[in-house]
């Protein structure tokens, strides 16, 4: 995990307070289905008021012509309600292509887009997945920000998501 901290961040550490990190690991499970499409996935941070504190990622079919892949973004229905419907796609620094089966790690830094500067408090990492002709699943991992010590959280999905893990470091 340590090796995945962006070089730019480590470079800034000299003579400065180190920025906290938030690393998310998402497993897209292999499914034995007749028609498989990679899931759409949204990742965000939610405050205690259920408001979106930071929109971290949305993976959707960006390759279809005429932005046709945006048609199914509303199937990430919790994300769509909380923030997706207010964004213009593609959203800079947030949107990206769907990911294949396997484990994917994304790392975010305090004070930098898209995580930005979160006020001190309790939050939840939310990961929502929706698959064409398949199902939908939403997972949450609570965490404290900023972290005082390295912390780990993990949940396991039942059908659309595999293991989802969160690691925060001061």
């Amino acid at each position: 995990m340590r090796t995945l901290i962006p070089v730019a961040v480590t470079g800034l550490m000299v003579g400065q307070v180190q920025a906290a990190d938030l690393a998310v690991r998402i497993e897209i499970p292999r499914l034995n289905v007749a028609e498989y499409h990679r899931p759409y996935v949204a990742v965000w941070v939610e405050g205690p008021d259920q408001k979106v504190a930071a929109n971290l990622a949305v993976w959707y079919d960006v390759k279809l012509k005429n932005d046709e892949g945006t048609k199914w973004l509303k199937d990430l229905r919790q994300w769509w309600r909380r923030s997706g419907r207010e964004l213009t796609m593609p959203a800079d620094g947030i949107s990206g292509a769907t990911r294949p089966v396997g484990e994917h790690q994304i790392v975010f830094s305090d004070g930098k887009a898209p995580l930005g500067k979160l006020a001190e408090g309790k939050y939840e990492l939310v990961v929502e997945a929706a698959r064409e002709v398949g199902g939908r699943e939403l997972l949450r991992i609570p965490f404290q920000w900023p972290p005082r010590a390295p912390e780990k959280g993990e949940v396991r999905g039942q059908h659309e998501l595999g293991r989802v893990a969160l690691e925060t470091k001061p």
Partner: protein
Amino acid sequence: MKMSLKWAALALAFSLPLSAQAHRMWMLPSATVLSGADPWVTVDAAVSNDLFYFEHFPLQLNNLSVTAPDGAAAKAENPSTGRYRSTFDVHLTQTGTYKMAVVNNGVFASYKENGKNKRWRGTPEKFAQEVPADAQDLRVTQANSRLETFVTVGKPTDTVLKPTGVGLELAPITHPNDLFAKEEASFRLLLDGKPAAGIEVSIVPGGIRYRDQLHEMKTRTDADGKFTVTWPEPGMYWLEAETKDDKTTFDKAKERRSSYIATFEVLPE
């Protein structure tokens, strides 16, 4: 069912108390929450007993209007009326909330002519021509009905929710395309633009065919015309409210019946 199709369809279009049959008028959009670069909806419209199955009469689309998020009229494309349902498409070229509305204003008369019971429906202009001046036991009712549904592309907007100030209308407090199971939603009923107090509101979830009980929810508007509903589960819901008064705009009619009907989609949390 002895009534001719035309008579029945007309009567239903005017929402008149022709018989005790509890037909329900409705529009059913293919989706109410949409994303994407070039979305369309298709809408089924029918008069039926069970919700939302087209099994009785098509809804007449003569008085259909579609309002775009900017308040301008939008086009109902590919309209078609079949044996059991009407259908039309709307190309959603703007982001925001669209309204589909079927508003009917009609006059209904019952009377005796030469000892025989007669029934008539039409417009105030045609009344004098078509109803005999010496009609006995004449009873004239004005019937106004508004049937609506809403769909939203992207973020919900409020322009199409502004009431017209005529008849029974819904002034949503909770946006009609932001409804979720287990959550409470609030609305206000207005009669001629003013809070409609003490009116019974009936809400029936769709899918009647596959259950034994109606699961109707009844509530009543408060002094401000407000009512709240907590959606028990996700799905399509049909809402109806009706009231009677003597505020007719046609002097021959002594009674005015005003009704409001809408279809809402409630999403899972």
